[in-house]
């Protein structure tokens, strides 16, 4: 990558802004790190932090100094808000330093002018800091182009989701493609995603699955590992949609019209697909998840519990209760990074759930 690379976390960073300034933002979901030993993290973060945060610290400390020109973060949860300084401390211990920047995204009240003004100011200050550090200049024209590029990437990811629902592509392949797209420049990502559409769209069946198939929505912070995805599909589930933070939640909303950067991000976070980390969206979550089920004619929702993710785990009991009340079957699968070692038990649970749906 010729452009300085900025490692961003968590979840939904303002990637368009970095891109418009001639930088390459990558979003550290660290999916590929999850199954690896976390020796670097073990020196800094206890094992009762979620795997996402532990993998993220590991990824950064292992390759951060050489690969990234800077790190950016915003507030999302109690664990993640501690990580910028932990990463910095880890880097210092390795004798390395890199640019670090943070903003606070109003967790509530973003529908009120004072919170919008606050976010506007956070964005302006971030731009000023990036301009000064990297000797670059912000332009509205370039920002607009960046927004269009990311909109295109997100739109193709949504289309690919439909290809998965129609049986043209395995969910595991889809997940790999999506997560790889966060680690490369958006131009490259658009190119790869388009190639995937060309390859997989023609493979869609008119009626995917067979008589024993069930249509499932996956919900969680991250998707299950590849082998676990395979188990779900081979058990007879078609993943017709997802409410995964690193997938559908990340790509569902791009503000419709161009505006200044501050207003763009007010719209971006205010109307974002509901996520437990965005408090203002909490009241829309059940309604949105139900709509996702109905639009995709799903039979069930499989919650992928990210162990130690408090935000998700506080909402899951309520969501499962409400889903059950609507006659939608649910299952909770907990993932903790070692799911590849427990595939047999995952297989047993998934097959039992499938059987339950067949013989209610």
């Amino acid at each position: 990558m010729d452009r300085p690379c900025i490692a961003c976390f968590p979840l939904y960073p303002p990637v368009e802004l970095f891109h418009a300034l001639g930088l390459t933002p990558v979003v550290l979901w660290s999916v590929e790190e999850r199954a690896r030993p976390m020796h670097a993290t073990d020196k800094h973060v206890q094992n009762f932090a979620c795997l996402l945060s532990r993998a993220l610290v590991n990824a950064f400390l292992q390759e951060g100094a050489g690969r990234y020109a800077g790190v950016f973060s915003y507030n999302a949860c109690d664990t993640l808000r501690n990580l910028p300084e932990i990463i910095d401390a880890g880097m210092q211990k390795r004798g390395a330093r890199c640019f670090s920047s943070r903003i606070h995204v109003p967790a509530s009240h973003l529908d009120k002018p004072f919170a919008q003004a606050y976010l506007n100011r956070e964005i302006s200050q971030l731009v000023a800091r990036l301009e000064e550090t990297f000797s670059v200049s912000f332009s509205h024209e370039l920002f607009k182009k960046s927004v269009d590029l990311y909109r295109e990437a997100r739109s193709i990811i949504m289309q690919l989701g439909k290809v998965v629902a129609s049986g043209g592509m395995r969910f595991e392949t889809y997940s790999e493609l999506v997560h790889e797209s966060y680690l490369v420049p958006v131009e490259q990502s658009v190119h790869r995603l388009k190639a995937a559409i060309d390859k997989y769209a023609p493979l869609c069946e008119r009626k995917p699955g067979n008589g024993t198939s069930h249509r499932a929505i996956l919900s969680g912070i991250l998707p299950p590992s590849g082998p676990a995805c395979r188990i779900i599909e081979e058990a007879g589930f078609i993943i017709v949609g997802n409410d995964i933070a690193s997938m559908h939640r990340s790509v569902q909303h791009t503000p419709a019209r161009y505006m200044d950067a501050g207003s763009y991000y007010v719209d971006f976070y205010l109307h974002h697909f509901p996520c437990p980390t965005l408090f203002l969206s909490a009241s829309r979550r059940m309604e949105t998840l139900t709509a996702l089920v109905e639009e995709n004619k799903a039979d069930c929702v499989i919650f992928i519990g990210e162990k130690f993710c408090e935000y998700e785990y506080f909402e899951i009991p309520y969501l499962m209760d409400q889903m059950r009340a609507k006659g939608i079957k649910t299952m909770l699968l907990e993932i903790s990074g070692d799911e590849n070692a427990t595939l047999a038990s995952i297989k047993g649970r998934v097959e039992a759930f499938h059987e339950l749906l067949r013989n209610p």
Partner: protein
Amino acid sequence: MHASSRTPATQKSPSARRLTSLIVSNTARLHDARKRGDFVIWAAICAPVEIFKGFEHVIVAIPENFSAMSAGKGVALPLAQRAESLGYSMDLCSYARIGIGAEIGTRDALDPGGLPKPDLLVSDTNNCSLLVKWFEVYRQEFSVPHFILDVPFCYDVQQPKDLEYILHQFKALITVVEQMTGQTFDIEKCRAAVECTDHANKYWKEYLGFATNRPSGITAFDTFAQMAPFVMLRGEPEVLEHYKLLAEETRENVSAGVFPVPREKYRLLWDNIAPWHQLRAMRERLAALGANIVHATYTSCIGTVEGGFFHHPYDVRTDPLVHLARIQNFSVCPYGLSLRFEAMAAIIKNVGIDGVILASNRSCKVYSIMQMDLQRMITENLGIPCAMIDMDHADIRKYDEESAFLRIESLLDVIDQRR
């Protein structure tokens, strides 16, 4: 003067008796007020409760305090288990599980339940943001509004933009309470409450200051218990009176040579929420080793601002809301690693600490996820040995006394070797 041990454990000191009386009367007051039709707010521990003193017949209950007291009394476990049976993961904060178990779902006729039912929920991201999700569970259960105070996390001294943002939210909160109660906010009553808290904090700091005495005039375990009035009744004259008497009583004890650990060999600092289920057991076992936890970051932060050690006073010429916004970062949780280190370094220097116990608390990630680096910074930069023990502030199932004391005794050995 010969140092003697304090009153036997079975005999309560005057301040401990007053504390019990305050807790009992507050519980009765809350339920009576509900019966009278007063407006009940369930607030987060760090929410600016002095604002609510600007209204008549508005009372405040603190769910975290209820959970801590339940754990301290040894009655928390069945409540946590009830929440787990409702689907709430055992990995979730034990305060939340206890609070959910006490308030959600069906209970039998003999179960007194928890707090009087709320009209409004006010959560706050500054002690932890998971509390917002916990209060959301209450919102779903009781169908009452939930106001979320969003306090930016502090990596440095609070910035004016953050203070202004918090202030806007206070005004929005006042509007909500005005609309719901039909009253007009009285800022002078709020000011009086802020002054009251400020004076109480001054006495609190004086009380904590007796830790500098050798042997220490206090233990951190006492401070854990004695913080309850600050948590439950901030802004009320009884709190000021209580802390004034507490400081006086401690001064008299120190003058009379009455100390909690008379043969004090090791002066320790505790970093995390109190181990509520272990207050007496841990204090007594440490005392038998000649060790006293003389200070705790959890209680030292009361009356300060981010990274501070000394009292941050209220200037009466200042708008009380501005002061409340300024001190939103008083507790340890809303600030980051550098500020935490600053605050701990100040305690170590001012109180004279021999070693630090970092309680790695599975129920409080915001407090715990950074302790590994804190431990390294304290050891390398200050030359003070540390021990990290596994702990859960309110779930006794996640604490192993022998494992903890193995590490604590090793810490005492290291302190000895360095002497």
